């Protein structure tokens, strides 16, 4: 039985070597970003002493870059800071509305999108929204940097693809061009402060005639992990997002889902709601995309 320790390295290399050394010695180390999941777990489900490695002192994890080609969101930036960034909100409104749904004002002051992803809850609100905008995980570790699409990163309930010594530096997101926009909707039984019964993120690209030329659909809280639903995107692409196309996309989401029944909703209910959320999110993304057309 070891003891808790706290480290706050100032370079990426230090974080990687601390994590790798602990793994090599059979000792436990865990990365701390916002701590809104970790601190709760430390007091309840998972009390085993370990070394906490705070990544908030790194320049890289605090970097927010809005480039011409892509957007980079460091894994230590709290949601509240992201949501105050008007430029980011106008470029990725769906992703930002998803991260803004996580917890209270107080939780927003700490919680990060990177943490939401690594915590890998089936109901993590920002994950389907990340999938919709084709976000890529920027991972560093002993073998150097690597990239992975968000939909491949979460491997199960509470499980992610990071191996010993690795941590998430941030997310790279292709910057949406003119005619492309995203939206995220979730359903909860109250208006605030709850966990998704189901969620859907949709990104839509329109040509000058309003024809859908590209789409991505991510769904959450209806399977062990958030899912990319290519069949839903296929139903939207080539259409003007008329009722038939929206209905087909919603049905594809229901078909891809494998929900459980719990106190928030039955499996049957979730299958229906995820289709509705997909349709409505697609319609919102369409409106936004058409407002950004050249």
């Amino acid at each position, binding site marked *: 039985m070891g003891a808790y320790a706290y480290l706050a390295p100032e370079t990426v290399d230090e974080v990687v070597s601390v994590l790798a050394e602990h793994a090599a010695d059979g000792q436990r180390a865990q990365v701390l970003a916002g701590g*809104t999941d970790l601190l709760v777990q430390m007091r309840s489900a998972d009390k085993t002493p370990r070394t906490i490695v705070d990544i908030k002192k790194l320049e890289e994890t605090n970097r927010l870059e809005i480039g011409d080609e892509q957007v980079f969101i460091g894994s230590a930036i709290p949601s509240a800071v992201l949501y105050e960034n008007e430029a980011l909100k106008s470029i990725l409104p769906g992703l930002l509305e998803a991260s803004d749904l996580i917890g209270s004002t107080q939780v927003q002051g700490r919680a990060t999108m990177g943490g939401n992803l690594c915590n890998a809850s089936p109901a993590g609100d920002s994950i389907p929204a990340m999938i919709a905008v084709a976000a890529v995980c920027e991972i560093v570790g002993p073998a150097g940097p690597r990239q992975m699409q968000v939909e491949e990163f979460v491997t199960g309930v509470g499980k992610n693809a990071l191996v010993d010594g690795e941590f998430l530096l941030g997310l790279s997101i292709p910057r949406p061009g003119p005619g492309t926009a995203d939206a995220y909707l979730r359903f909860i039984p109250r208006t605030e402060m709850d966990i998704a019964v189901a969620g859907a993120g949709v990104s839509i690209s329109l040509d000058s005639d309003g024809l859908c030329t590209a789409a991505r659909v991510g769904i959450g809280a209806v399977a062990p992990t958030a899912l990319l639903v290519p069949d839903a995107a296929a139903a939207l692409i080539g259409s003007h997002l008329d009722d038939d196309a929206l209905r087909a996309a919603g049905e594809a989401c229901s078909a891809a889902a494998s929900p459980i029944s719990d106190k928030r909703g039955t499996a049957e209910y979730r299958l229906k709601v995820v289709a509705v959320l997909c349709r409505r999110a697609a319609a919102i993304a369409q409106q936004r995309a058409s407002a950004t057309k050249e």
Partner: protein
Amino acid sequence: MPRIQVETTINGQSQEFLCDANQSLLDVLRDELGLTGTKEGCATGDCGACSVLVDDRLVCACLVLGAEAQGKTVQTIEGIAGEELHPLQQKFLEHAALQCGICTPGFIVAAKALLEKNPDPDETTIRYWLAGNLCRCTGYDKIIRAVQDAAKELAHPA
């Protein structure tokens, strides 16, 4: 394991303390520094009773490690009143916006953070901002009215 030495600024005063690696800022405030105005409700980030500002950002002190306060400024309920009560504190009294009082410090710290960011919030904004502060006594209406009245008072001091 040696305890961690942390240098911080609390309510404008520089403050050093020792803490364990897994000790929350809430436990440090209450158990190490005797600042018991910040309350523990749930210790899971759901109730907001432990609301404090860290580097001017509203957070739950139960979700922050004491060690993370190194080099940061922390503001707690104890720093809110000057010679006289802060208008929020005064209006909470006038509107009877508290009964048992456990949630009150968190509400006042959170409401003050809102009014500094947005001096004239509408009722919906106040309710959403304070959605992470739970009160099981008042039914919230009196709290919302106290915050609205305090906002007026701050904008046009009597």
